[in-house]
């Protein structure tokens, strides 16, 4: 198995490895997701109908508001949430929400990572080493 590793500038949480869901548009927990099922529900979203359940959610940017702070905790409780988050740039809400839910989150990832990763790839987040890797 080969892996390509990328450095990240900001990171917190445990190490996790899972299948990726790569959003080509900025991510918002309130605008994009049905938070009871973990399925992307926004009508004009390129990934409409895709589940983030037990996957690593990846996007270059984020948008929207404070709902994400509770959304990750709530989705984890329902067993429908992502298991990790990777953003090019993020806002505090995503980080606060991830920390409350015990999810790993990294940001400040090299742009090349987003060119290298696709939905369905296996990705590993290692916050302690400040790394994210495309494993296969």
């Amino acid at each position, binding site marked *: 198995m080969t892996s390509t590793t990328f450095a990240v500038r900001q990171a917190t949480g445990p190490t996790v490895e899972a299948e990726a869901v790569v959003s080509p548009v900025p991510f918002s927990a309130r605008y994009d997701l049905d938070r009871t099922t973990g399925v992307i529900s926004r009508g004009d979203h390129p990934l409409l109908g895709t589940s983030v359940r037990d996957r690593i959610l990846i996007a270059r940017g984020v*948008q929207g508001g404070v709902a994400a702070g509770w959304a990750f905790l709530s989705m984890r409780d329902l067993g429908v949430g992502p298991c990790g988050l990777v953003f090019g740039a993020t*806002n505090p809400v995503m980080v606060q929400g991830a920390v409350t839910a015990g999810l790993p989150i990294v940001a400040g990832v090299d742009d090349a990572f987003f060119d290298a990763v696709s939905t369905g790839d296996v990705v590993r987040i290692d916050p302690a080493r400040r790394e994210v890797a495309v494993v296969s």
Partner: protein
Amino acid sequence: MRLTAFEREVLDGSHGDALAGVLREQVSVGEFFGADRLVEISNAHFMGDREVFGQAGLDYLTRLVDAGLTARVPTTRNAQSVDLEHAQLFAQSADLIEGEQRTRVLLRDLGVSAVNTCIGYQTVYQPRFGEHVAWGDTGTVAYANSVLGARTNYESGAAGLAAALTGRTPEYGYHLDTHRRANVRVRVSAALTDVAEWGALGTIVGERCRGYWNVPAIELAQARGPVSDQLKHFGASLASFGSMAMYHVVGITPEAPTFEAANRGREVLDEFEVTDADIEAALAREFPGGGEVDLVVFTAPQLSFFEAKQLADGLRGRKVADSVRLIATTNSMTFEALSEHGHLAAITDAGGVVLRGTCWYVMDPAAQRDTFGWRNLVTNSAKLVNIIRAHGYRPALRTTAECVEAAVTGRVSSR
């Protein structure tokens, strides 16, 4: 991070495991963003209700209450998902209603004032220039930083509550001078008279310059000095479309006597002009040829007294079309004032519904769409337009007067 003796004691568990856990979350966030320390705050505002936090949130609050924790600073709650008086009218689920009733008890025990408003800065508490606070709701953050010169980051539900319980928050981002400098320059030649047009400006700037760390400076060529409600809609839209937490209006907001003063040497990422044609294009994105409308909604943010008075003046003596539901939301303080002055009656006599303590988009609008068959929606809130698509609606942004006409005629005007 450099921690005080008190903060180290808390982390060591001397003040209980629950408070240690709360502060540990704050330190993790602070370390993520490279904060040197925690800063004491004077006020907290947070979002928390059954619709956004589910059973997990109720369990989270219950653990804090059981541990005997209470807010260390005055703390308010944002707009929430149920107006108990109107819950049946909107077919809200028993689960939401019961969740709200349980939440109110828990919040009282935590020392949180459940004023249920996203316009607390217009009705409850206005921090002074330079005051450090920890506010949730992105629109309130934009207003606090930009218009009042107070200092806060976006504080999500649990994070805002954590700040209330510890009386502090990590010092990074908009608590620091360096991040408050403008790095986007926008020259606005558009006239901008209605709140919808200010919201449209937020749409244009937010979409083009999206990013929490970007700070636009707006230079007005002809628009008159904006009033509080216009800045409220601009900031709410900017936050919604652009995830932005601060802006300057040159010559208007307190940290921008000039563009140079707002910028203070920060590299400018983008510079552009917004014209009347740009605003018109934003308003005409949906229903450019007009069309039938199911819902007319005034919300996001809640209406101030004068916004609601304008609505009442537009509806007085008229009738909302039978095919249309007109909804306006505000907080309890404004609701009572509207009632005393006869404006509430003007809206309800026309067939409108005024909800208090909630903001319509957090009232499970997808369920309402299914129940009532609603789809086409008109609003003067650009923020609502951005949010409501995810719930299966087709929204149009129009001026306040056009929204009133849509409510009365059952048709949204062409643009």
